[in-house]
């Protein structure tokens, strides 16, 4: 409620031009605890009139969420002499670990292909632009990678996820799966009218492991030697303890 009031206050301070967008996220940080099984964030926004003093719709909203970037590789298995093995691969540099497109309607009805391409909205475009290959090969692996990411719940398309509360105000629910990657998530909001971009806005939230999980994860990356030694001591200790407890 407080954030809503804040959003309304910001309305008054909006700079003069075309329409502007004010929006806010329910959380700026998502903590992953040991019982974490996904999270839902809410986002509220309002399209404010510019200098002309008009903010008349109908508007369409596209929200694009991009998770932390990773290097990912897609591989294909083929059968050679009766044995299935990986024979070809394409690496994708700086590829999002999570990607969601949430819109207020069918994307192809909201925006023409050139606008979607210009703002790299479609997940396939994310793959194409990061593929370390060219031509048909890049195209084929891009489509397959997007399909696999979708099957694992890391790439999401939700074409009815933006709910209009009034002509100018909307609400979005962002679902994060249980196995999200740590790091900064960017939330890009595009406002479209008559199939053209009116305004856009980018904000972010961060996801990080909390407590013991975070400690263990950071230790394995920053103090690998110590981590390995602790693992070994744990093994020796468990073995020794079992020998003492179950002495035959």
């Amino acid at each position, binding site marked *: 409620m407080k954030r809503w009031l804040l959003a309304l206050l910001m309305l008054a301070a909006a700079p003069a031009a075309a329409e502007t967008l004010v929006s806010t996220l329910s959380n700026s940080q998502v903590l992953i605890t040991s019982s974490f099984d996904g999270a839902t964030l809410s986002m509220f926004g309002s399209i404010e009139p510019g200098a002309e003093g008009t903010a008349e719709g109908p508007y369409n909203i596209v929200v694009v969420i991009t998770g932390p970037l990773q290097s990912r590789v897609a*591989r294909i298995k083929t059968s050679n002499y009766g044995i299935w093995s990986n024979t070809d691969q394409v690496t994708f540099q700086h590829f999002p670990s999570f990607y969601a497109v949430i819109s207020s309607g069918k994307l192809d009805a909201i925006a023409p292909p050139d606008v979607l391409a210009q703002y790299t909205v479609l997940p396939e475009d994310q793959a194409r632009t990061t593929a370390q290959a060219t031509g048909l090969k890049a195209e084929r692996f891009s489509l397959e990678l997007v399909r696999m990411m979708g099957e694992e719940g890391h790439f999401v398309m939700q074409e009815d996820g933006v709910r209009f509360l009034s002509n100018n105000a909307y609400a979005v629910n962002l679902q994060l799966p249980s196995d999200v990657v740590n790091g900064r998530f960017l939330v890009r909001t595009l406002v479209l009218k008559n199939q053209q971009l009116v305004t856009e806005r980018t904000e972010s939230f961060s996801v990080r492991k909390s407590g013991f999980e975070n400690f263990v994860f950071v230790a394995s990356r920053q103090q690998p030697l110590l981590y390995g030694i602790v693992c070994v001591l744990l093994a020796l200790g468990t073995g020794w303890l079992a020998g003492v407890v179950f002495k035959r």
Partner: protein
Amino acid sequence: MNLFFLVGIGGAVGFLSGLFGVGGGFLLTPLLIFSGVPSPVAVASVTGQVAAASTSGALSYYRRGGIDLHLAMYLILASTIGAMAGVATFSALRSAGQLDLFISVSYLLLLGFVGTLMMVEAVRTMMRRRQGIVTPDRLPSQHSWMHGLPMRIRFKKSRLYISVLPVLAIGVFIGWVGALLGVGGGFILVPALVYLLRVPGNVVIGTSLLQVVAMMCVTTILQALTSQSVDIMLAFCLMVGGTIGAQFGASAGKYLRGDQLRALLALLVLAVAIRFGLTLVLPPSDPFSMAVLAGGLPQ
């Protein structure tokens, strides 16, 4: 991954390892891979579990004086070098995208070979028993071609005076295979010590266990350093389940005859080998796969 599932799978494999007197890595790693754990993580994390499972055994043999420390030292030194080579090979195969293939083929060959040998031996013993022929455990002959090699060393406890070269070669090979496949290598090391080096029966198991503990510790640290795919939580769940299961397995083992145990173990080993063979031959449900190379660190 479910905590109870992991402790359970560790317990089940621990039961089998206690029953058959093996480390269990060669069953646990495949089981984890088949249940969806990425093979790099499975291989690297099982090493910790194998170390834990072998520690209590090694300790009790040590108390009974069933370890040839001198021989174990040479084996450990050699297997450390082998493990370094194994971890390097592991990383190279992983970045080339051929780790899964290599693991499948190696398991198929290794388990197929060992399983067949054990099966043949167990069936032969059973048939002899049925015919009423009592065969005393064969005493190893005192000489083989190994004894002609240079650099001979006296291992007092094992009452051996043999060349150090085959000892080192066995150590390097075990270290390499162990690091690559996430196995302790006891099921290769024991036959190698018995049949190649003629190590007497009273120190074979203890020496092999000590070597497995040392090598798995080295491998765990090396994997943590290079591939960073050791999952300490996964390893710990497996350790707890494994060490407890092993105690029950060891008690259950007293009710079965040696040849029956070996035949059962051979069946199990062959089943795992066949499962790996199938993954190689059958068309995959999805020819495409993906993996993360780097990134996604906390900020």
